[in-house]
Each structure stands twice: as structure tokens, then as C-alpha cells.
């Protein structure tokens, strides 16, 4: 391959100079003959390829040997997302099996940021595991196992899954981000993870992994002192875990996500976390985001928010009682974001106003099937003022009263927020 002259820098046109029509005229900075797309410098083709989609790149690679070589340069294979779909269960296409084979053969060692997106068929999840098992000589930094519909990884045999995952854990040795929510990962695999990657692990997301125990996750917290982000279910949360994450050797925790899920009404008993443990965590990591997702029945909220809890982001996926919202106003001073899917038919004015007054960091709120009188809502917004950057209220939530109707509410609220605001609407036809 002939390299172009020094004029081929970033300021120069990438493509060969067009000939003037009708005249045979040698362009001033032509490549040495023959002027040929295939003779473009590799670095330039590489740059172009980096802007192309995988499909376009793959097509381009069939054009000529040079472009084919570029297609296989390591830089283009650092990041890959395997999409595994079956026609019977998905409308989307799958990564071509030939391409997958090629990657395993030629590019396994280049892969650094890898994710697997699988549909709801067990077949797809198993295919993902098969690929994982073959990624032997690699230095993967980021790994994501993502179910795009049903949690199909849970249908894979636990042994098969665990052995595939362990291959990556053992071989990569520098894993920094791992997303394995909704998978049958277990305590022994976490031990393997820790044994090989404790220095590099920064992010671990494992919500809804039913085979992991509190001891298993505690092992991770104890050994991986660089852990900045953790997502898990409430049953794995313990005082010991919070203390381990707050030990001197541990870096500041940035993000802790906790899913609180109920199996059957009234059948799950939730333990409480001691106030001291929370305080230790916040003392150690003052900026930590503590995100809690609740999918509980109304009567199961008993153990929560009875004492001061440093939660910053709260999501209630089901109905939550007035009383609960009252407690949140009292005990969640760090609250930044609050989303309530449903409450009921009694106005939440009092509770909201208290939240506005006491949660001074609140910047985002979303309300679904609730009721708030217009006056109460205006009071709430006035108290929060301009700090509310996200105010997502379903139109049906606001109840007109003698002071404000629906037309007036939007201008009143816009005034207090300092920007134009409207409630969220749904089509009515």
C-alpha cells in the first residue's frame, strides 16, 4: 500500500480529487497511481469504518483486500454487542452465526466491552452461554448479559450458565463492569469473580439473582475495594454489607441500587437495616446515590422508612399509601427523585407539601394514579421553586378546586418553576 504524501493530513480532503470534466488533468495531491479506493491509507479507512454500522462495515469488507484487512483490525473489535434472537420469539434480527464464529476465531482477544442481548427464548440464552464459554484468551473489561424480554437466562441450567460465566471471570482478570441481572449466578461464581478481578471491579449489577446469598455479596464487598456501583435485591442487603462498603480501604461508593420485590402478598418478611449502618455508609461516601425500587403491596411497607434513611431516588412501582408518603417526608432528607405509580383517591396535598419542605434536595417528581388538589399542588411547587427540574404529573392527578382550574394551574406552576410547564397527557378519544 502506498501511503499518501504528507498533504494527506486531517485538513485535506479524504477522497481523491475529482478530475475536471472533459480535461485530462493531474490532480495536485493525487495518490501515486493507480488512484484507487483500495489504496486509501489504512488509518483513514479505519476512521471511516468507525462511523459505519456493523452491517455496512461488513459489506464494505467484501469490496477489496485492503478494506477487508481494515475490517479485522483490533480497534474495530473492542466493543461488540451480540444480539441473539429466534424468529419464533422476536421481531428483531440476530447477529449472523458466521460473524459470531469469525469473532470467536479472530477477535476474541480484542474484545473489551462485550454485551449479550437475548430475547425470551431459552435457545438464545444458551447460545449466549456457548459464546461466553469460548472467550478464553480475552481481556474483557465490561460484560453485560441483558434479557430484552423475559428473563431467559433463568431458564438455562444453572451449571451451564455458571461454567460459562466462570470462563470469563477467570480468563479476563481485569473485569471492571459486570451486568448480570436476572441470571442464575451463585455464590461460588462470585467467589471466582473476586479471586480474579478484585483489583479492577468497579461496577456490579445483579438485581434479581435468586441464587446469591447475603454472604456471597458480602464476599464481593470485602474484597473488591474499588467497587463504586452495586445493584442488588433487598434480601441481599445487610448491615455487614453496608459496613464493608464503608471500610477504610474501600473507595467512595457512588451508586447503590436496591430492588425491593414481593413474591406474594403478606408472605415476604423484610428485615430492617440499622440506622447506624446507613449512617456509616453516608459518612464514608457522602455523595452516594441510593436508589430504591419498590414493587410491594401496600401492607408490606411496614419495615421501611421508620427511621431516617439516606435514600436519594425512590420509585414505587405499585400503589403506596398516604401514610408511607408521610413517613418519607419525615425520614428521607436526602431525597432527590420520587416517582409514585399509584396511590388512591385521597388527595396527597399534605404529604407532598411536607416532602417539599423537608426534602430540600428534591429535584424530580413523577406522579401517576394519585390525586392532588390544584391548590395543594401549587403550594408544593412554590415550596420547591426552581429546583424542580423534572415535574411529570399525569393530567388526571390534578383536581381542580375553587382556587384553580386546569387552565390556570399550568400558568401558575410555570410561573413558580420559571419555565413553561404542562401536565403529562394521554390521548382521549
Amino acid at each position, binding site marked *: 500500500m502506498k501511503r499518501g504524501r504528507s498533504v494527506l493530513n486531517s485538513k485535506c480532503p479524504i477522497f481523491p480529487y475529482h478530475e475536471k470534466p472533459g480535461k485530462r488533468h493531474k490532480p495536485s495531491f493525487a495518490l501515486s497511481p493507480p488512484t484507487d479506493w483500495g489504496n486509501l491509507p489504512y488509518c483513514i479507512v479505519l476512521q471511516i469504518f468507525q462511523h459505519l*454500522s*456493523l452491517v455496512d462495515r461488513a459489506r464494505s469488507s467484501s469490496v477489496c483486500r485492503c478494506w477487508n484487512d481494515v475490517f479485522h483490525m483490533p480497534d474495530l473489535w473492542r*466493543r461488540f454487542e451480540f*444480539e441473539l434472537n429466534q424468529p419464533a*420469539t*422476536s*421481531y*428483531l434480527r440476530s447477529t449472523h452465526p458466521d460473524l459470531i464464529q469469525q469473532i470467536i476465531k479472530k477477535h476474541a482477544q480484542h474484545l473489551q*466491552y462485550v454485551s449479550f*442481548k437475548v*430475547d*425470551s427464548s431459552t435457545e438464545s440464552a444458551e447460545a449466549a452461554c456457548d459464546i461466553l464459554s469460548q472467550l478464553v484468551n480475552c481481556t474483557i473489561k*465490561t460484560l453485560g448479559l441483558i*434479557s*430484552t*424480554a*423475559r*428473563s431467559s437466562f433463568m431458564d438455562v441450567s444453572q451449571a451451564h450458565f455458571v461454567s460459562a460465566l466462570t470462563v470469563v471471570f477467570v480468563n479476563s482478570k481485569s473485569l471492571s*463492569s459486570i451486568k448480570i441481572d*436476572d441470571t442464575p449466578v451463585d455464590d461460588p461464581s462470585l467467589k471466582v469473580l473476586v479471586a480474579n478481578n478484585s483489583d479492577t471491579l468497579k*461496577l456490579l*449489577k445483579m438485581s434479581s439473582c435468586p441464587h446469591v446469598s447475603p454472604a456471597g455479596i458480602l464476599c464481593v464487598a470485602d474484597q473488591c475495594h474499588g467497587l*463504586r*456501583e452495586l*445493584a442488588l435485591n433487598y434480601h441481599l442487603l445487610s448491615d455487614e454489607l453496608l459496613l464493608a462498603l464503608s471500610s477504610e480501604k474501600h473507595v467512595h461508593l457512588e451508586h447503590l441500587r436496591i430492588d425491593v*420485590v414481593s413474591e406474594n*402478598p403478606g408472605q415476604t418478611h423484610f428485615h430492617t437495616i440499622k440506622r447506624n449502618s446507613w449512617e456509616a455508609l453516608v459518612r464514608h461516601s457522602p455523595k452516594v446515590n441510593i*436508589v430504591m*425500587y419498590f*414493587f*410491594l403491596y401496600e401492607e408490606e411497607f411496614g419495615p421501611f422508612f421508620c427511621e431516617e434513611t439516606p435514600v*436519594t*431516588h425512590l*420509585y414505587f*412501582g405499585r*400503589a403506596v399509601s398516604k401514610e408511607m408518603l408521610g413517613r418519607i417526608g419525615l425520614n428521607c432528607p436526602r431525597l*432527590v*427523585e420520587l416517582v409514585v*405509580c*399509584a396511590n388512591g*383517591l385521597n388527595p396527597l396535598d399534605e404529604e407532598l407539601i411536607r416532602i417539599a419542605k423537608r426534602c430540600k434536595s428534591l429535584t*424530580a417528581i*413523577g406522579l401517576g*394514579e394519585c390525586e392532588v388538589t390544584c391548590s395543594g399542588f401549587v403550594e408544593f411547587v412554590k415550596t420547591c421553586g426552581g429546583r424542580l*427540574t*423534572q415535574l*411529570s404529573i*399525569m393530567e*388526571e392527578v390534578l383536581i*381542580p378546586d375553587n382556587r384553580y382550574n*386546569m*387552565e390556570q394551574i399550568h400558568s401558575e406552576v410555570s410561573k413558580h418553576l420559571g*419555565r*413553561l*410547564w404542562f401536565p*403529562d397527557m*394521554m*390521548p*382521549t*378519544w
Partner: protein
Amino acid sequence: FVGVFTVFRGLSAVSTCSQSCSANPTLTTLFIFNAAMKNSDSMGVNTIHWFRKGLRLHDNPALRDSIRGTDTLRCIYILDPWFAGSSSVGINRWRFLLHCLEDLDASLRKLNSRLFVIRGQPTDVFPRLFREWNIARLSYEYDSEPFGKERDAAIQKLASEAGVEVTVRISHTLYNLDKIIELNDGQPPLTYKRFQAIINQMDAVELPAETIISKVIKNCTTPITHDHDDKFGVPSLEELGFETEGLSTAVWPGGETEALMRLERHLERKAWVANFERPRMNSNSLLAAPTGLSPYLRFGCLSCRLFYFKLTDLYKKVKKNSTPPLSLYGQLLWREFFYTTATNNPCFDKMEGNPVCLQIPWDRNPEALAKWAEGQTGYPWIDAIMTQLRQEGWIHHLARHAVACFLTRGDLWISWEEGMKVFEELLLDADWSVNAGSWMWLSCSSFFQQFFHCYCPVGFGRRTDPSGDYIRRYLPVLRGFPAKYIYDPWNAPEDVQKAAKCIIGTNYPRPMVNHAEASRVNIERMKQIYQQLSCYKGLVISVSSSYGESSRDQASLRFACTRASQRTLPQGPLFIG
């Protein structure tokens, strides 16, 4: 032959005739037909008005305009008999349509005219009619939907080849949709708020055209043969191949007459309530109201412009001349919004290839879809709604939200296209644009990005109708359950189920999904999609940043949401409005 040729106009008609002469044996009947019609058709101006939607004589400017200077008028409706068999349109929709046609026929009879129902495809029917009836003019109401525009373009071509003048007028929408798009820099507004802002800039809505009454039509005749009913009569449901044994009376009778009566009732009720706010939802709202208007708007039995002006007049009367807010016309404007978004997008009813639709990895699950469609989900709230839909053809808009959410992003994670097809079959007021648009909206595939808001199939119903009477009405098998358990009967103790004579799992299905689990999983899925949208700045319940390596190389999302027009929105969070 020469004698016959003098009947036809223009060379193009001659060439059409000579082409079809060799192939068309019915030309001989044409001779006889024309000989009989010579008096009325041969010398005068003969007009066809083609009813598609706009099934009314009030506010019908296309018909109104084409009557001027016409000697004979024939109002036709073209019925493709094969549609009935393919039943992507259910019996209630057909029955409603037939009612509309019968009503039109009755109204035309009062004007010494008749409706001509013609079987076939428009591209086959029109050349024949242009010749047979010696047509000089064709009129119809403008159809803004992509399929409609294509079909009409083909017909216009046929018309110009036959020397037929075409009169098209806009009256199915309040505004000229192309003007709305023009005002928004050539793109349809993708948010309702933006849409309202554009509406505020438009000229006033045009007044409805005067109703076609005897005075208007007095100079026209309609040549009616003695065998009109056999050849051109409105068919019955049985003739279309439907089984009508055991069919209950229509809850929503079709037709312009019914529509206008309902309009009066609707306005009376509003005036009596003297409250133009959105009515509070209660258990009665779920039932079909005699003031409901949506199916009539869809078929065009009721003019949206008439409705618009009557609402305006009423408001001004009750509120002493103050300017009506846009929210007064909510129902009409939503309809207009979806028509506008759809008019230039032939892929509007699909996910793939649709530039305004998020590519979401929905599940393919025909079994689960069937359970939903047939009201066998095991969730009484969902099943009752789907039963009402199937039996009557209409459900309240909040009921639609509930079942749409359940099917798509709430519980089953099935594609909105499947739900849209079921609604197309069963729902009286679902036309192409509004149905597809609403489904995209409710599944958070477009326009609306507040995916955190999920309707609970137990709680939502319970809060809407605590007594459970709605459930008992449409699911009689559950009548025996007390209000406490009727929304989640699987939680009822055995003795309660026995007393209700309904064992869950035997007489009524168990719930097909665990809602808490399904919604947890699905909210995560929606978050995954939205996190990857570079323009999304809404509530994300704290998206953790370090893992979010934007995989732009392989984005399976092709959502062009960064349109120049959206950036000119007034300052505010992107996800609102």
C-alpha cells in the same frame, strides 16, 4: 358504432372504449343501458359523489360544491366484498357501517335520490361507471391517510383519462393537515404540546358547509331504476357472510341521524353540568353513553367541524363569551394530532421502518396474545374490558390505557402492532391513524416518554369502580365474588370461591402473569431502551453512568427524535410536551 360514440366525450374516453370493446362483453348491455338513459345522461352534466368516510349530508362541502350545475347526481359507496371475509374488521364494525349506509339511503330518499352501493374495487369500478353513466364530475371528501392518498391518486388518474372533473374538499379534519405540517417546518409535530402551539397559529376552523336539503339539490335528479335495490341496495350482514344468530342489538347504532341526535344530547348534558372540565372518572363512565360520539366522528356521520362550532357556541353562551380554551376540543384535537402525524408516513402502523417509532424488542407470543384478545388473562379488570370491547365495540379511553399497557410495556411485553390489529377488528372508532398513533403512545414507543407510569391490572380497576359492578356485568361467572376479591379472585379463600360458585383455575383462569414481577422486568427493559437515547433527559431513576457506554456503532434504535422543530420548543425538560 358511430352513433354510440357521439354519447362519449373526448378522445380519451374513445380509446378506453375501443380498448375494452374487444375484451368486454358487457358493452352490448352498455348500448341498451345508454339508450334508456339517453334523455337524462346524454346531454347533461352527470355527477358521482363517492362516499368513503364523511357518511353524512351535513357539512359535506365536496358534495355541496359538485351539485352546482349538475343535472344528475348519484351518490355511491364502494364495498369490497372480500373485506368481510378477511375479518380484520369484526361484525360490530360492519353492522355500524351498514347502519350508516342505510341511514344515508333513507336521507337521500327524502330528497328523491338513493344511495348506490357498488361491489368491487375502486380502480375497477370507476372506469365502468364513468362510461355507463357518462360521468362528467366526481366528488369526494379528502382522505389524509397514506393508503387513501395513494388510492385517490390512482382514481384521479383514471378520472382525468376519462375526462372527468374531480372535486375534493377537506371536511374529515378540522384543518388542512398539510398546512399544520408546513407551519412546523415540514414535519408533523411529535408532541401534543407542540401540536397545540401550532394550532394556535392556524387560521380559524372553516365553517361547516350547508346541509344538503331539497332546496340545494332541487335541480338535480337521480336516475333510479326499478331494480335499484337488487343492484345497488345496502347489503345485510347475512349477505356479507356473517352469522347473525344470537347477535344482540347494537349498543352503538350507526348513521348520521343517530349522530346528530347524540350531538344534541351531548351538548345538553354539558350545558346542564355547566362544567367543561374533563369529567371525573367514575364507574358509570366505563359504560357506553348515549352521548358518546367517537364512532360517529370516525365514520364521518358527524362532522368534526359541526361538533367544534357547537361546542364553541355552547361554551360562549354558558361562560358569557369568554374565549374557549383548547382543552375544550380535546377529543377533536387528539384525533387531528394523530391524523397529522400519520398523513405522510405509510409505515405509521408498523414498528419496522417507521421513523417515529422506537425499535423495542417486543416478545413474539401468539398464545399470550390470544388470551389477552379473548379476555382470558385471569385478571378480571382486563378481561371485562376486552369482553365489553368485543361485545359492544367501544371502551372508555382509560380502559384502553389499561389493556394497552397490560399487553405491551406493563405486563405481556407483546408488540403494540398486535394490539392495534385487535382494536382494528373490534373497536368502532379505531381508524388507521388514530389507532396506530394511540397504540404507539400507550406502549411508549413514540411521542410519550413517561414509561414509569404503569397501570396495575388490579389496583387501577379497583380504584375506578370499587363496587366491581362493571366486572359482574361483563364477566357473569364472577358475579358471586364480593367487591373485596373481585379484582383479584385468586386471592379469595376457598370458601369464598365455593360460595361464588367459581373456582379459580377451573371456572375462571388463573392470572397469566405475576404483575409485580412482570412490571419490574418491563420497567427495566424500557429503561434499557431509553437510556440509550442520547436525547432523553427525563426521569430515569438515576441512570448509572459508567456502564452506559453509548453503543452507537450498533444502536438497534433508530429513533430520530432530535428534530430541529423540537428544539424550538420553549425552555423546558425535553420529556414533557
